[in-house]
C-alpha cells in the first residue's frame, strides 16, 4: 500500500476499515489492475448495472461485494424503484448498503494520473487527506486550502474562523478527457485538460457547483443520505444529471448544517470520451430544466428544525415537488423517489441503539 510521499508530511491514515470504494459498472473491471497498489487494501462495493445475467470479472486479490439488479430488487423490494437502471446513477445503491464511514466512488474509465513531476497520484490518499482536514466555507482563503502542507491562512483571515468545519465532500478532478457537456464536446472534440492545478479549496457557503461523480469522496456519516443520484437512464427522460442533482442537494444541506465541500486535487486520468450525440440525447432536457433548477437550489432554505441530513432531504423533496413539479411531472416522480430513498436508507441503516430491525442480507458475493 502506497504510503505518504514525502518525509516532511505526516502519514495519512489508511482508513482501510473505514472506507468503501463504490464502483458502478457494466463491463469488466480490468481498470482496477492499475489501481491495485492504491485500492487493494480496501473493500469494494461493485454495483453492476444493466443485464444481471452477465458476469463481471474482477481482478484477483480484491475484497469486494457485488450487487446486480436482481440483488437491488431483492434487497429493496418495491423501494428499488428509486434506484436507476441503465445509468451509472445506480451507484448510490452502493452508498446505501455500505457500512463504512467514508465512501470513495470512481468510474471504471478512470485511471491513475501523474503529477507534473511524473509521479503517480494516489487519488484515494488525497481524498482521505481532504476529508480528514477541515473546510473553510465562511471566508475564502486566497492561498486555497490552509491546512495543506506549505500553506496557511492569509493576512486578514479572521482567527475565529480558522478552525474550520468538518469536511463532508471531497470533489476530485480529471486530466485528459474533461467533464464537458454534450454541446461543448461537439464544439471542442479534441480539447484535453492538461492543466494540473495544484490546489484544493473549499466551495464557499451559498455557492453551488456542478458535482461530478467520477472521482468523488464523501463522509457517509455526515452527508450519506443526501447522496442520492436521482432517477436516470431507462424509462427516465434524462441522463447525465445524476451527480449534478446529488451535488446541488448535498451542497444546500451542507450549507445548512455547517459542513464543508472541497474541490480540486486529486486528479485522475479520464480515458474515455463518451459519444457526444448519445450524451446530447440524455442531457437535452436537463439543459433546459437546469435553468429552473439553479434558481430553485440557489434560493432553497431549510427550516432550523431540520437538524439531520434525512430531515433536510425530506424537506427538500417537499420543495422539489411543490416548486419544480410544474416544470415537468418528472420532478414529482423524482421528489417521491427522494422520499423512497430516505426510507430505504433508514431501513438499511437504522440508528445505533434504535429498533432492532433485521438487516436484509446485503452481500451477494465475495471473492
Amino acid at each position, binding site marked *: 500500500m502506497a504510503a505518504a510521499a514525502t518525509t516532511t508530511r505526516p502519514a495519512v491514515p489508511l482508513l482501510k476499515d473505514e472506507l468503501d470504494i463504490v464502483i458502478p459498472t457494466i463491463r469488466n473491471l480490468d481498470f482496477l489492475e492499475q489501481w491495485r497498489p492504491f485500492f487493494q487494501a480496501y473493500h469494494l462495493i461493485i454495483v453492476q448495472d444493466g443485464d444481471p445475467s452477465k458476469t463481471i470479472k474482477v481482478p484477483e486479490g480484491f475484497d469486494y461485494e457485488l450487487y446486480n439488479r436482481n440483488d437491488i430488487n431483492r434487497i429493496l423490494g418495491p423501494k428499488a424503484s428509486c434506484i436507476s437502471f441503465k445509468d451509472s446513477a445506480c451507484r448510490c445503491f452502493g452508498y446505501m448498503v455500505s457500512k463504512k464511514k467514508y465512501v470513495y466512488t470512481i468510474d471504471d474509465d478512470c485511471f491513475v494520473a501523474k503529477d507534473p513531476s511524473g509521479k503517480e497520484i494516489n487519488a484515494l490518499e488525497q481524498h482521505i487527506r481532504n476529508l480528514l482536514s477541515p473546510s473553510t466555507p465562511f471566508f475564502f482563503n486566497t492561498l486555497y486550502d490552509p491546512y495543506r502542507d506549505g500553506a496557511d491562512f492569509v*493576512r486578514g483571515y479572521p482567527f475565529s474562523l480558522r478552525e474550520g468545519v468538518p469536511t463532508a465532500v471531497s470533489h476530485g478532478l480529471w486530466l485528459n478527457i474533461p467533464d464537458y457537456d454534450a454541446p461543448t464536446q461537439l464544439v471542442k472534440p479534441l480539447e484535453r485538460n492538461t492543466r494540473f492545478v495544484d490546489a484544493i479549496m473549499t466551495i464557499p457557503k451559498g455557492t453551488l457547483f456542478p458535482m461530478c461523480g467520477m472521482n468523488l469522496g464523501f463522509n457517509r456519516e455526515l452527508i450519506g443520505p443526501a447522496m442520492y443520484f436521482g432517477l436516470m437512464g431507462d424509462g427516465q427522460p434524462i441522463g447525465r444529471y445524476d451527480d449534478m442533482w446529488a451535488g446541488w442537494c448535498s451542497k444546500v444541506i451542507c450549507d445548512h448544517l455547517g459542513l464543508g465541500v472541497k474541490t480540486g486535487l486529486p486528479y485522475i486520468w479520464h480515458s474515455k470520451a463518451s459519444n457526444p450525440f448519445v450524451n446530447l440525447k440524455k442531457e437535452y432536457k436537463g439543459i433546459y430544466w437546469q435553468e429552473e433548477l439553479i434558481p430553485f437550489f440557489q434560493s432553497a432554505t431549510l427550516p432550523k428544525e431540520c437538524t439531520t441530513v434525512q430531515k433536510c432531504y425530506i424537506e427538500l423533496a417537499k420543495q422539489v415537488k411543490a416548486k419544480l413539479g410544474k416544470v415537468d411531472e418528472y420532478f414529482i416522480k423524482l421528489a417521491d423517489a427522494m422520499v423512497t430513498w430516505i426510507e430505504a436508507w433508514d431501513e438499511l441503516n437504522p440508528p445505533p441503539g434504535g429498533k432492532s430491525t433485521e438487516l436484509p442480507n446485503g452481500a451477494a458475493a465475495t471473492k
Partner: protein
Amino acid sequence: MALEHIDDSEVDIVIAALQSDLTSFLNAWRPLFSRFHLIIVQDPDLKGELKIPQGFDHRVYTKSDIDQVIGPTTSIVFSGYSCRYFGYLVSRKKYIISVDDDCLPAKDNDGNLTNAVSQHLANLTTPATPFFFNTLYDPFREGADFVRGYPFSLRSGVDCALSCGLWLNLADYDAPTQALKPEHRNLHYVDAVMTVPAGTLMPISGINIAFNRALVGPALFPGLKLTGEGKLRWETIEDIWCGMCVKVICDHLSIGVKTGLPYVFRSDKGNPIESLKKEWEGVKKMEEIIPFFQSVRLPRTATTAEDCLLEMAKSVKDRLGGTDPLFARAAEAMVEWVKIWKAAGASHSTPGV
C-alpha cells in the same frame, strides 16, 4: 493573449514608493513595465528624492502634490501603502495595475518568467463568473471551459472589476502566522485563476492587484488606519478593509472579482516577531469587521461605485462607528474620498450593470 486588444494607453501602473531607491525594482520589471505609463507616488513620510532608472515613461507624485490636490483633510492619511490611492485618483486610464515595491516578477513551475501585467489584463478583459462555481476554474482560459452541469444562461459571465494576484516566497501572512513559521516560504505555484463567488468574502491583498478603474475606481480608497500602522504589510489592514468594501460593492453591482494568477515574487523583509505588537490590533479588528461585512446590504438605488461607497460609509458609521473611533474615522474617510474623487474630476463613472 489579451494585450492584443488593449491599447497600452489604457493602462497605468501605479507604484507606491516606500523605499527611495527604485532602481533594482524597476529594472527587474522593465521588460513588463516599460511600454506603460508609470505613476509613482512617494510615501509622504519618505524624505529625499526617489532614484528612478532611465527609460520609463513616468511621473512622480510627492507629498506636495498630494497636499495640493487633496487640500486639508483630517480623515484621510496618505502615508505608507495608502499613498498609492493618490495614484488611482490622478490616473485617467481604464486599467490600473499596482504592485508593492518589494515585489519582483515571478517564475512559473517550468522556470519561465511570468508576465504579471498581461495576466492581470487578461483577467480583467475576460468575463467573471460569480454566480456558479466552475470546477475547472476560469472557463475563459486557453484549454478550459465550463463543465457539465454549468447553466448555459450563466456562461456569458459579467465584467471583471478586480484581479487579485498572489505571491511566491514571502506570502501575505499576518505577523502571528509568519512568526510561528519564520522559515516558511510559499513555493506553491497554483496555475489557476478563478472568480470569487458572489456573496463570498475574502481578504483582498493590495500587494499585487489590478482593477478596472472605470468600473470600481472610487471604491479603492484609503480608509482604515490602525493606530500603530507601520511600513510592513503585516502591520496594516487598510487594503483588507478596502477590499471587503470593494467585494461587497462588486457583488451589489453584479461585477466580478478574480483571484489566482498572476504571482509576484515577494522579497524577504521585516521581522514578524517584532511586528507582532503592532499588528495585533489589526487581527482583533478583523473579528469585528467580518460580521459587519457579511451582513451589510446596499440599496438598489446605489448604482455607481461612488453611491455604493457612500452607502457603505453610512452603514459603517451606524453599525461600527459607535464601537471604535477607528471605524468612525474610516466612515468619514470614505465620504471624504468620494468628495475628493468628484472634485478631482476623477470619474467617468459607469453605472453598475
